[in-house]
């Protein structure tokens, strides 16, 4: 079969695959809006600026995986079969990415992962996969040190979701907590589709936790915040980047969410030139601000674009070029260097996450 | 000349491709006992079901006390005073005897029905013995008595009985027919379907004989009893060679 040119006529087609509906729907939608916004910028400026495909427009198609690994695998198969698609941006949830990756790899589709953070994804080299985000090993560890140093938690109760995201964070959080002497009262796993978390919350409460760390996505976290509040259990709560979304507050309610601390990989209120320009332009174009995952996928699109500019013109050459270039300048986060497994090189001492906090129904900066 | 209570004209009923009634006309006068006889599948039950509104006819008209019934829903027909006791008894098996009788008074004075029901049970020896049971536990004859009494709870002007003696022991079958005769004496109009044509003829004023959805004979009981063709076909008092014919028919089919 053909190698997949992805460039037909006067456009280049890329796919965004992620959860577009359901309890993780925001991730896919944000991710899609990030890529679409990048494509719009490029198309408005006359198409791909240089390289063999110069002047061609970018076309974006979306695939819904409903945050389900099965759907992810079947989406991957479909993208593989469709030689008109040059590259894929996604998936959001680590579990889905892990399920879909071997399929993309087998048929040679370049995969730009901007939001799945489980370490296993880049544990070994997958030639076609490039992740533009720090992994959970770093983020989990960081959340533990934040809890201990900045937030002053003494005895944390941990709730983790039953997927690769929750699992990866839990492992690394508890490991670091152990190392730095943070007492973990209990770490409990919740199951998918669960809505009533009172049993687990009661368990943590009984274990004497003085704070809650919720290692999961926004719907789960919001329900847990809400139910802890309803139980009358008032403790500081710390949530993941996956919960850095206005939906968190909407579902949990202003009262319950007040004061919740968020570890974020993207701070929309940042005054640095990259992020603030992105937020301004994006808001102007979309009528509302970007979600975290939009910023991440926007960045990753410029990695792909760079490979086109440097001479790539089909699936195989995108993979080859991206690997060769190795160093990129991301519009929001600045310099990114891929290591040997296509994971961003960690700059020692530079934190991957910033702390934000819910105040008056808005996620703003952390004030302690 | 008594008034005609129920009249059906040119009734046609189909079950899918099967025509069960093919243009049947009949009438029942006030106070009469009319018997309906016919072989299996002749359409007797279908006719009763059509009259009581369980089945919509494909054509023809039905009037009861001058009111059109062909388009009236079954439960409204009951209200107008025509009650049907279907074949197969249809007691409410999980109800007690009293509750079964109450159900019969659904269109009637439901409030005072409880007392009446108790009186009826007490007044019917065969039911009084089983007053404590649910209807599902009764024997066939007891159930038959129960459903007839249940139908009477509606104070109908006319009652239609579909093979009330089927499956009953000879003694009970006689008792049921006796009850029908008593009802008639009390002024009730009765349309009776019976396989046991001899017994039916004894209590009926007039008879219709059906075959394959059409009326074959019609007349006063005594006249028909004397009609040799009718007797041959419906009473089973067969002449010797008719009997032989009946015996040999199945074998004739063998090649």
């Amino acid at each position, binding site marked *: 079969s053909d190698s997949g040119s992805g460039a037909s006529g006067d456009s280049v087609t890329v796919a965004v695959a992620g959860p577009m509906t359901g309890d993780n729907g925001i991730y896919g939608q944000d991710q899609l809006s990030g890529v679409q916004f990048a494509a719009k910028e490029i198309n408005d400026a006359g198409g791909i600026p240089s390289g063999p495909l110069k002047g061609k427009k970018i076309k974006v198609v979306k695939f819904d995986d409903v945050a389900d690994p099965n759907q992810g695998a079947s989406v991957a198969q479909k993208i593989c079969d469709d030689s008109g698609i040059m590259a894929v941006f996604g998936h959001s949830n680590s579990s889905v990415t892990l399920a879909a990756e071997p399929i993309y790899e087998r048929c040679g589709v370049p995969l730009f992962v901007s939001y799945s953070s489980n370490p296993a994804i880049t544990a070994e080299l997958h030639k076609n996969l490039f992740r533009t985000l720090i992994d959970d090993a770093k983020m989990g560890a960081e959340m533990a040190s934040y809890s201990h140093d900045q937030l002053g938690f003494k005895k944390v109760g941990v709730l983790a979701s039953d997927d690769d995201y929750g699992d990866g964070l839990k492992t690394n959080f508890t490991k670091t907590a152990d190392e730095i002497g943070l007492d973990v009262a209990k770490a409990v796993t919740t199951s998918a589709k669960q809505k009533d978390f009172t049993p687990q919350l009661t368990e943590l409460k009984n274990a004497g936790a003085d704070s809650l760390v919720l290692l999961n996505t926004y719907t789960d976290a919001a329900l847990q915040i809400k139910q802890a509040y309803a139980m009358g259990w008032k403790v500081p709560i710390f949530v993941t980047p996956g919960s850095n979304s206005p939906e968190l507050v909407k579902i949990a309610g202003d009262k319950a969410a007040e004061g919740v601390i968020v570890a974020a990989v993207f701070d929309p209120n940042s005054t640095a030139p990259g992020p603030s320009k992105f937020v301004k332009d994006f808001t102007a174009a979309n009528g509302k601000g970007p979600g975290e995952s939009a910023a991440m996928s926007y960045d990753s699109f410029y990695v792909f674009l760079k490979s086109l500019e440097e001479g790539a013109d089909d699936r195989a050459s995108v993979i080859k070029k991206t690997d060769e270039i190795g160093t990129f300048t991301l519009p929001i986060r600045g310099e990114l260097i891929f290591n040997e497994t296509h994971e961003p090189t960690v700059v020692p001492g530079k934190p991957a996450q910033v702390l934000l906090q819910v105040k008056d129904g808005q996620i703003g900066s952390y004030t302690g | 000349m008594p008034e005609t209570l129920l009249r059906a004209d040119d009734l046609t009923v189909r079950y899918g491709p099967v025509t069960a009634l093919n243009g049947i006309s009949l009438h029942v006068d006030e106070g009469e006992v009319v018997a309906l006889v016919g*072989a*299996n*599948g002749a359409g007797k039950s279908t006719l009763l079901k059509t009259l009581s509104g369980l089945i919509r006819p494909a054509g023809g008209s039905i009037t009861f006390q001058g009111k059109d019934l062909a388009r009236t829903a079954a439960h409204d027909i009951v209200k107008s005073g025509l009650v049907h006791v279907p074949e197969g008894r249809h007691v409410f098996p999980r109800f007690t005897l009293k509750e079964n009788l109450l159900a019969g008074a659904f269109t009637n004075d439901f409030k005072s029905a409880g007392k009446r029901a108790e009186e009826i049970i007490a007044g019917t020896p065969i039911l009084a013995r089983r007053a404590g049971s649910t209807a599902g*536990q*009764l*024997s*066939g*004859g*007891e159930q038959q008595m129960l459903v007839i009494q249940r139908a009477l709870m509606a104070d109908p002007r006319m009652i239609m009985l579909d*093979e009330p003696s*089927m*499956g*009953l*022991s*000879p*003694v*009970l*079958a*006689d*008792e049921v027919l006796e009850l029908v005769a008593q009802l008639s004496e009390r002024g009730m109009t009765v349309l009776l379907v019976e*396989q046991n*044509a001899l017994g039916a003829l004894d209590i009926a004023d007039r008879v219709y004989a059906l075959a394959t959805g059409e009326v074959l004979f019609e007349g006063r009981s005594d006249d028909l009893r004397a009609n040799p063709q009718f007797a041959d*076909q*419906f*009473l*089973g008092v*067969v002449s010797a060679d008719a*009997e032989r014919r*009946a*015996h040999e*028919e*199945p*074998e004739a*089919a*063998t090649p």
Partner: protein
Amino acid sequence: MSTTVTDPIFRATGVGCRFGGVIALDSVDFEIGRNEIVGLIGPNGSGKTTLLNVLSGIYKSTSGELEVDGRPSRFMSSRRLSRDYGLARTFQNIRLCSSLTVRENVLIGMHSRFKWYDSILPFGPGSREKKAAANVEEILEFVGIGDKADEIATDLAYGDQRRVEIARALATSPRLLLLDEPAAGMNPREARVLVDLIHRIHAERDMAVVVIEHNMNVVMNTASRVMVLDAGLCIAHGDPKTVSADPHVLEAYLGKRFRDA
């Protein structure tokens, strides 16, 4: 009760059967000889059908002893009784498989002769299916519905449905056939044809037959021996003439029509 049968195919001694508080069979002694037609009569609810159900293993008796071919059978399943001891029956409320044709309904009666591998090799030459099919034809002809083999069984006229039931029972090649009110709802004429069929079954197929009936014409014209049940007890037993003259029977069962006659 005195024993009139030597070497019975079936023997019940003191059999009782109760449902909660209801005593359907009190204590019944009953025997069926190898080649006789027995009539079973009694008022409604006297336990006739229950006795049949107990004999054929569909209900379990709550007391007494049952023997088939001299072997205790009280705890045998109806499957075993049908398969290994040749008991076959029809049902008071016709029970036919409503989505199957007449032929298939009768084939069900032959299932005990199939082996498990017949379902994987059903169409080979000389397969059991073929032999069974030929057998079905023959039985259908015998009961007189050979021309209706491919109709859906429950679409047939009532009398014919009764025949299908009988054909299905015959397909098991029984040694004892139990018929529960085969003439119910038949008109006098059809009942006559039925009487004839019962005689032929008995004569040509060599088996014992038990007939439950309320139609006294049928009972009198077929049975060589009649037993009368009342309230779960046998109240009379003997040849048809004697039994129908028994005052108890007249009182409890036959009623005034017979008394006057």
